[in-house]
């Protein structure tokens, strides 16, 4: 009996000291063995911060584009501001990531697939389609992240709560959006990029009952998801509601004001052109981000 007690005690001690595999996490680049109790997580997209913040976990490294204020207060209130910047999302610094000795890296399919092998040498890496995926994908990714960081139950509870919140928004918005098309796009000093119906924002608008006249396209992310659009092309899409996020002042869209083709747009004629915070709509994806977007849409529909 005594021997058995020692054996159980010994096993528990062994379990406590050796990292055990949380199991196989299946993701965009294959399957990765992620250890239990990951503590040092590096995230290479903003939507992964959204996931960690949802269950109160702070990453040690963030690809924050070297601009710490790109991590909005809604996230820093939960994760604090102790993270180390690992560079831009486009080209994060592998050296800085390695120096943080992470035990999990969460990377984006579009931006980081090419570096997957290198990242995997640094730490177990899971790859998720944040940039190219839609809203529903982004919620599914939250569940994968919850499982990878060993907080499946907490994450599932947060997802359930989020879905209830979004259902309430859908009930509130759909009676107002019936028969209307809405289009979101970001504009800087040199161009306009419309977010197609297959994009994160496009799928959110679709969920809220808005239509879209954008033609589906094939190709990479910047051909089918975030589509560069000229004034002539915009006049063909011609939605009832136009939502712009501007990264520059004056933006390309501002330079079109006064032109007949722009002034003849349905949304412009009926004064249904709205400006939203480009960063929140365009760069952030996830549950908290989606709830913010939904709140913005409610505001727009009240006007």
């Amino acid at each position, binding site marked *: 009996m005594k021997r058995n007690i020692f054996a159980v005690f010994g096993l528990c001690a062994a379990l406590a000291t050796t990292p055990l595999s949380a199991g196989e996490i299946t993701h965009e680049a294959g399957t990765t063995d992620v250890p239990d109790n990951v503590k040092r997580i590096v995230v290479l997209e903003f939507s992964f911060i959204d996931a960690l913040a949802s269950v109160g976990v702070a990453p040690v490294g963030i690809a924050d584009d070297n601009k710490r204020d790109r991590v909005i207060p809604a996230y820093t209130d939960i994760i604090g501001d102790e993270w180390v910047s690992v560079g831009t999302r486009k080209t994060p610094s592998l050296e800085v990531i390695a120096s943080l000795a992470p035990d999990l890296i969460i990377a984006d399919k579009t931006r980081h697939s090419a570096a997957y092998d290198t990242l995997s040498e640094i730490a177990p890496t899971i790859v998720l389609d944040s940039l190219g995926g839609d809203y529903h994908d982004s919620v599914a990714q939250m569940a994968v992240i919850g499982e990878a960081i060993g907080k499946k139950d907490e994450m599932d509870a947060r997802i359930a709560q989020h879905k209830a919140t979004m259902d309430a928004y859908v009930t509130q918005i759909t009676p107002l959006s019936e028969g209307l098309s809405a289009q979101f796009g970001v504009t800087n000093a040199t161009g306009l990029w419309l977010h197609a119906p297959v994009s994160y924002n496009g799928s959110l608008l679709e969920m809220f009952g808005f239509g879209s006249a954008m033609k589906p396209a094939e190709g990479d992310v910047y051909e089918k998801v975030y589509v560069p659009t000229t004034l002539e*092309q*915009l006049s063909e899409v011609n939605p009832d509601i136009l939502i712009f996020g501007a990264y520059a002042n004056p933006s390309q869209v501002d330079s079109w004001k006064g032109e007949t083709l722009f002034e003849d747009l349905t949304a412009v004629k009926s004064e249904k052109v709205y400006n939203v915070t480009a960063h929140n709509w365009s760069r952030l994806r996830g549950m908290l981000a989606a709830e913010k977007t939904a709140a913005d849409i409610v505001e727009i529909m009240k006007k």
Partner: protein
Amino acid sequence: MTALRGQPGSVPLKISIVCLTLAIACGTLFSLATGGRTDVGLADIFRPDGLARTVLFDIRMPRTCAAALLGVNLGMAGLVLQAITRNPLASPAILGINQGAALGLTLGVVLPNTIDLPLDFYALTGALTAGVVTFAISGGFGGKIDSLRLVLGGVAVGAFSYAMVRFTYTLDDDIARSVIRWTVGDITDIRWSETKRLAVWAVPGFLASLVMAQRFNLMALGQASARGLGADPRITLLLGTVVAAALAGASVTVAGPIAFAGLIVPHLAKFLFGGDHRVLVPTTALLGAALMLVADGLSKTLTAPIEAPIGVVAALMGAPWFLWHTIFARDVS
């Protein structure tokens, strides 16, 4: 006189004229019939009405005219540079003049403006400075241009200018975005105001080249012969540099640097119409226009619905020619 007129074209004159006319007509229709709206096409050009009229007059026509004028400007700049340097590889891009204009524009944006000068001024100053430095390196103002030093000087000036332009990418985001416009040849969002700015330089540039055509013919005989016939080659070089810099600078201001157009158009013109610059000046202008009209149509259709920058299309058309010419030309040095 035969010597002054240069070699006749390799193609009968009638065929050359038919080819040129067809190229311009097809290029114009191609450029006008293509664009962002798929429902505005060839038929609407002849019966414009309502929305199609707005699209054609406000969006497509200024762009089509701009493409043609860019072709005129770059073709002429290339012809003038090839004539004054007597080097078939001379062009605004190879001699660093395009890049110099981009650097001028960049400095105009980055440096705090004490005097409010138009952007054209900065482009022209940059282009002219780059041209003068390249020619000084090649020994041109001493009366004898060394071909190798000319091309190497152009590469050095171009590389330096571009390095400075790229440096500004590291500055503020808004500055970087403005500067990027002058590193890729692009006319996606051209309206009548920009087209007018191109025309303002194209017309005097064309007339000046026409006036100087005989001087270019004399340069073709060799610098010593030109001097003997009363046309000081150094003056031709200086005047030609000013004309080429103005034409290239204006083009860079509106559309960014477009490589190869300035290089291949004069060669095509010489192939079709011979070596007399009094004929070459107008034919190069028209051929340049035709080439850029076709390039504009291709830029809107090759990767539709997303547009490829016209600079990329021009490079795709011009690079093989440049390679062929470099490998097979007998009179490079």
